[in-house]
């Protein structure tokens, strides 16, 4: 009995991490059809945002510090959503319907974001600010000119090197100041300490359930319910469903599709931020944190059936439980008790480490996709149903 509960709990707990990481992608990839390889980096930004919130709350002392994680969730959501919005407005909106280019562009963005957290310091922020102020401010000023359309390329090709030049000049001018050039995070991993009430666990039938894991499960359920409510009940949710199902007709009905795209992408990115906040409780946070999750999240969305939230839920739980059963050796142990053939037991014992379990799960997914190429719940068109 205890083994069963332990297996189920651990499986659900791995599954909930997968699910919360995949939820944002289920929207961005599933609903919008955008292959966003920077999704893991948006999670990483959420994790770093949690780290920053923790450091802000630390000097406030005890009663406050215990609740920093609650404050970190919306902050992580907003930080990742803003980065997602910039990504959508700056790059992805030009690439809708071109999956290969999107793939390359978002991969490039993921590399940029990784290096960004390694080398970000006040000087970099100041220079970026100067560049944005000069370039976008200049564009805004010149937009009112009557001959804007015809002059556009000329103005951009003049303004871009000018603004970049000024920003780079500032960079070299101020680079002597060591207070400005201290990296915020550096390339080393940082640690998010769980508040006291998330350490330890509750004992059920002789088995310890860590509070941090329970917290992640609860957070996943909350996010899931929030997303469901937003998509099914809210006015913007109806617009999002309409645009994902029939873009042309939606625009003819008066729905601002560009706005809906930006909002959908920001929502998916923000959910990645919350996922980053959750995974920061499980281990240290580094520039490569996102890379550890991106493959798993795509796996969940593909197995679940693109565009299907319920599919993603079942796929995440299924992959999580399977992963645990194989990885912890529970399956091998079970086969021993029913005195299965020795070769079979050896086979499962061979896969009874966490990395080998991943290999096996991956192989099983490949076989599964041979049988059902469109995932658990294949759907016609790009639609969202829970």
């Amino acid at each position, binding site marked *: 009995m205890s083994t069963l509960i332990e297996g189920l709990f651990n499986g659900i707990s791995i599954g909930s991490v997968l699910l919360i990481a995949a939820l944002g992608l289920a929207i961005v990839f599933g609903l919008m059809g955008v292959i966003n390889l920077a999704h893991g980096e948006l999670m990483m930004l959420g994790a770093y945002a949690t780290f920053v919130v923790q450091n802000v709350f630390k000097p406030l002392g005890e009663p406050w510090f215990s609740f920093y994680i609650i404050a970190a969730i919306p902050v992580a959501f907003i930080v990742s959503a803003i980065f997602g919005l910039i990504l959508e407005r700056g790059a992805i909106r030009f690439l809708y319907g071109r999956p290969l280019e999107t793939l390359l562009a978002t991969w490039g963005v993921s590399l940029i974001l990784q290096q960004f957290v390694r080398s970000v310091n006040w000087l970099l922020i100041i220079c970026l600010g100067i560049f944005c102020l000069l370039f976008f401010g200049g564009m805004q000023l010149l937009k009112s000119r009557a001959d804007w359309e015809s002059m556009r390329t000329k103005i951009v090709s003049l303004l871009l090197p000018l603004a970049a030049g000024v920003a780079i000049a500032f960079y070299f001018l101020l680079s002597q100041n060591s207070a400005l050039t201290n990296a915020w995070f550096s390339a080393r991993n940082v640690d998010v300490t769980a508040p006291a009430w998330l350490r330890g666990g509750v004992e059920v039938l002789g088995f310890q359930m860590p509070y941090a894991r329970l917290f992640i499960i609860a957070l996943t359920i909350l996010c899931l319910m929030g997303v469901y409510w937003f998509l099914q009940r809210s*006015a913007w949710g109806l617009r999002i469903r*309409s645009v994902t199902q*029939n873009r042309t007709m*939606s*625009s*003819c*009905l*008066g729905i601002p599709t560009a706005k809906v795209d930006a909002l959908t992408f920001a929502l998916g990115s923000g959910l990645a931020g919350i996922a980053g906040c959750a995974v920061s409780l499980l281990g240290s946070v580094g520039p490569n944190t996102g890379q550890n999750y991106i493959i798993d999240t795509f796996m969940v969305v593909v197995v679940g059936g693109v565009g299907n939230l319920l599919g993603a839920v079942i796929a995440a739980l299924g992959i999580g439980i399977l992963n645990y059963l194989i990885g912890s050796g529970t399956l091998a142990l079970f086969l021993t008790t029913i005195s299965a053939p020795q070769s079979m037991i050896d086979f499962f014992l061979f896969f009874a480490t966490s990395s080998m379990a991943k290999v096996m799960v991956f192989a099983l997914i490949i076989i599964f996709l041979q049988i059902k190429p469109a995932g658990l719940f294949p759907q016609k068109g790009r639609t969202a149903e829970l």
Partner: protein
Amino acid sequence: MVITESIISDRQSTDLMLQVSNLNVYYGESHILRNVDLSIPAGQMVCLIGRNGVGKTTLLKTIMGLLSPRTGNIFFGDRSITKLTPDRRAKSGIGYVPQGREIIPRVSVKDNLILGLEAKPEGRKSQESIPEEIFELFPVLKTMLSRMGGDLSGGQQQQLAIARALMGKPRLLVLDEPTEGIQPSIILEIEAAVKRIIAETGISVLLVEQHLHFVRQADRYYAMQKGGIVASGSTAELTQEVIQQFLAV
């Protein structure tokens, strides 16, 4: 003298609901619409006729903003909408019922209707209800509000598409072959509904149609051939000869 002239031109511009001038549209390098001129007087129903593939749907798509013309201008009321995106055109008062109806499939009939409210200039309010007139025009919709839009039959979808376009209280209704592939009794229902809409609300209608009985309901007709307008006039003058020339296969 000058003053009277300006008054006349003013009146002309306000009396025309839609004015398309010198429109040229290309798909890639192939020239689809050639110098198309068309105007719809306020409160009138104008019918566009022609065989398959002469560019009728292309013209409607260009009016809606789904295709952008290489040259030419589109005026709606007294302002140019040539550069506006489809959603801005819809908000300025054009209701579009496309060929193939384009109902949002996995959204309920009620939500499909509510999406029609997006076209209202002030936007959709949180308090959403479907006015009773819609159900008076299309009683069948009232019984299927909770069904998925994609599960309806062709005729029901067509009625839903017209009802959805009316939800936004448009000033111009653009109908692309509303009777295509629909059983005769439903065609008569749709015809009666469109006539009733015009009588009650006084909106203008641009109709693309092959069904002759429906064509005769219009005030004016334009006939298209090879991407250009080749004949126009009042539908009363629409003789068998003209029909033979532009509609018969």
